[in-house]
């Protein structure tokens, strides 16, 4: 789909807001990992239920198995955040956080939930503060564990026909750790966000 939900200025503002929020999430992650975290340039795309899998696999770009954690966000904007960990990165996490590297399955799950919650919390708070709008988020839940990436999202289970996808990723220099944070917002939120972005730009 080539439909563009936003004007050039609205896109620019959204990109900058996500960039600021990502910086805060990256800083939180760097603190718990005790390492410098490399940040990506946020990618923002409009996806349909038909091309969401190919778009996400193109962004995450791994043949390895992944684990994924989901969290809903709500209030002024509704949507879902998904954090995808490549398996090597998930395995590296325990070591980075100073735990024993042969964690059992439930301890590894706990770690993934904790890191996802930290990132999603920081990015949602960052967006909320920058745009001066109320946002809250749910507790994290594991949506996939050691699965091929194309099996993490099931188009038949999605409740939307198109959505705004915002992607950022975090890597640790010289380590295996890498994770992607995806935020999906559906039709109603896309419209609401347009008004919020206009207000934000008017306020500057």
């Amino acid at each position, binding site marked *: 789909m080539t439909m563009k939900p936003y004007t050039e*200025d609205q896109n*620019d*503002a959204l*990109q*900058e807001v996500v*960039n*600021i929020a*990502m*910086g*805060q999430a*990256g*800083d939180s992650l*760097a603190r718990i990992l005790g390492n*410098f*975290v490399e*940040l990506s*340039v946020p990618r923002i795309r409009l996806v349909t239920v038909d091309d969401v899998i190919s778009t996400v696999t193109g962004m995450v770009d791994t043949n390895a198995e992944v684990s994924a954690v989901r969290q809903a966000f709500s209030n002024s904007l509704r949507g879902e955040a998904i954090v995808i960990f490549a398996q090597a990165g998930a395995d590296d996490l325990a070591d980075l956080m100073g735990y024993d590297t042969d964690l059992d399955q439930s301890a590894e799950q706990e770690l993934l939930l904790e890191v996802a919650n930290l990132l999603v919390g920081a990015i949602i708070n960052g967006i909320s503060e*920058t745009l001066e709008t109320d946002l809250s988020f749910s507790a994290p839940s594991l949506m996939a564990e050691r699965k091929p990436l194309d099996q993490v999202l099931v188009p038949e289970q999605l409740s939307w026909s198109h959505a705004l996808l915002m992607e950022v990723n975090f890597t640790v220099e010289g380590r295996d750790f890498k994770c992607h944070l995806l935020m999906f917002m559906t039709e109603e939120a896309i419209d609401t966000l347009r008004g919020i972005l206009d207000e934000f*730009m008017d306020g*500057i």
Partner: protein
Amino acid sequence: MAVPITVVDDSKISRKMVIRALPTHWKVDITQAEHGKEAMTAYREGKAEVMFLDLTMPVMDGYEVLEQLQKEQLNTFVIVISADIQPEAQARVKKLGAMAFIKKPVKTTDIENVLREYGII
């Protein structure tokens, strides 16, 4: 006399945020640059006594600008304005010659404090 300053960021809204956050009594002549190459052109034309520099940009990023400025004797006061707020990022740009680091979203008080500290205002 107005101080020639250059605001470098690929985001238009971000440049606007910086310009709006400048102290109102500070007399400046503002040039805007969308990436590092434009920033270097402005610098060579004497339009950047003070440079407000973003890090992540296409064509030529902020780190490359700092390196290039060092090669050209760094005759400008660079204030990095970045969303990457990790202490390590701040240390890296200071090592490359940036005088100060301000986190996004930028606030007037942050800019004022830096300009005061170095006697620019």
